[in-house]
């Protein structure tokens, strides 16, 4: 499976090598507002989009399924378009922080602030349409506990069922993110540090829930969603 995805990736690389001068031309055209080709998002050429997607995948992994670099870098594949747009805005407006790795916040600020709204829309749509297998690797001993928290919540701790917003299959909806297949260490880190890291739009919804979960409950629910396809 790995060999196939890497080969697919290699194919794209070759395409980029051949098409880079054309991509530069295309981006010039798109900046000046000229349409380039018939079936493209207005203002974004397919080649400029492809180059940007490849750039994202350097860190976010093949087919954007997530990657563990120095930090856990989240899966974007299958993610909700509106959520991705919202998070990019959060980074650019310095509302989304990263206490464990301030450099990573800085990275996403830099990535986000050069993107045009049209490119953001095109990127988010492309990611939404990807469907690679989950990254995997989470501990499996507490999956049943995780499933119970996800489907029933913990009423004694005022934690609602995750599925009531994120959906039965954890695929999210609009501004509510997909969790299915998300990297286990990433979900753990976000839920653990929620109130220190997340101040972007809609993030306040999750603050009391993250606060109500214990470390072992966070581990369990993060492991559960990480295996969902």
């Amino acid at each position: 499976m790995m060999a196939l995805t890497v080969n697919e990736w290699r194919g794209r690389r070759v395409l980029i090598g051949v098409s880079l001068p054309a991509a530069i031309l295309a981006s010039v055209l798109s900046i000046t507002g000229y349409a380039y080709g018939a079936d493209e998002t207005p203002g974004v050429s397919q080649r400029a989009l492809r180059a940007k997607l490849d750039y994202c995948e350097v860190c976010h992994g093949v087919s954007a399924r997530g990657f563990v670099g120095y930090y856990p870098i989240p899966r974007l594949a299958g993610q909700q378009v509106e959520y991705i747009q919202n998070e990019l805005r959060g980074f650019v407006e310095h509302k989304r922080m990263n206490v464990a790795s301030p450099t990573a916040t800085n990275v996403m600020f830099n990535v986000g602030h050069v993107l045009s709204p049209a490119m953001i829309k095109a990127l988010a749509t492309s990611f939404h349409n990807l469907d690679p297998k989950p990254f995997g690797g989470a501990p499996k001993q507490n999956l049943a506990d995780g499933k119970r928290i996800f489907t029933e919540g913990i009423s004694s701790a005022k934690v609602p069922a995750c599925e009531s917003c994120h959906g039965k299959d954890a695929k999210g909806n609009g501004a509510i993110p997909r969790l299915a297949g998300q990297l286990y260490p990433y979900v753990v880190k976000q839920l653990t540090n929620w109130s220190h890291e997340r101040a972007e739009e809609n993030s306040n919804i999750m603050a009391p829930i993250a606060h109500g979960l214990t470390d072992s409950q966070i581990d369990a629910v993060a492991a559960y969603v990480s295996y969902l396809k």
Partner: protein
Amino acid sequence: LFLVQIIMMNLDLRRTETTVFREAGGCRIVGRGGLPLIFALLLSLPVLAFATTGYARGLHAGASRHSVDEKIRYCEDCHGLSAQGFHGYFPIPRLAGQQPQYLENQLRAFVERNRPNPIMSNVAHVLSPAMIKAIVARFQRFHPGPAGPGPKRLVAAGRQIFENGVPHDNVAACAACHGPNAVGHGEIPRLAGQLYPYVVKELVNWPKERGQNPASPDTSLIMKPVAHSLTKRQIEAVAAFVSNLR
């Protein structure tokens, strides 16, 4: 040069001891007594003790401490003292402080011709898995200073690229995977203190030197678009930055 001489003397001494040890063994088989034999046995005792305790204390089954020491010295012939890197005919990379998983992967890449390099291919293909585990663990613990730092005047520009990338040119920030201090993580290599000319050479030649065996694609593919998007000047800047890190 002085240190190299000391190493050579050590090697010579070691050879002498080994010879005496072999002679002593020979004498015992012949079964002749007398002073020369006792003298030879006495001489060989430290060697025997070293060999046995070395074996018992070996960190990894199948690779005695003694044989690991020998192998490390052999690596240091080219990779420099404490594996800090060395300018031979080519820049020879620093291995000190390197991530064990990365070193293992590279040794495999030499054997599988993903990194075509006849010298390293020969070095790698005689190493047992136990020996590889032992030497990469040893290299990670070395912590010498940088052996080949690049020009200081490029460091600030290099830091900018390392921490922020070049978003307009689709260059990802190095720090996201290599870490803010460039120490690497797992299969992602440490860059801190790496030889400046080595980093420049690798980034310039990436598509020709890495991932050359289509039958066994490896993680070097991740770096291909990054190396491709960087200009020579940007490569020199970022190499200067990492080569000066401790």
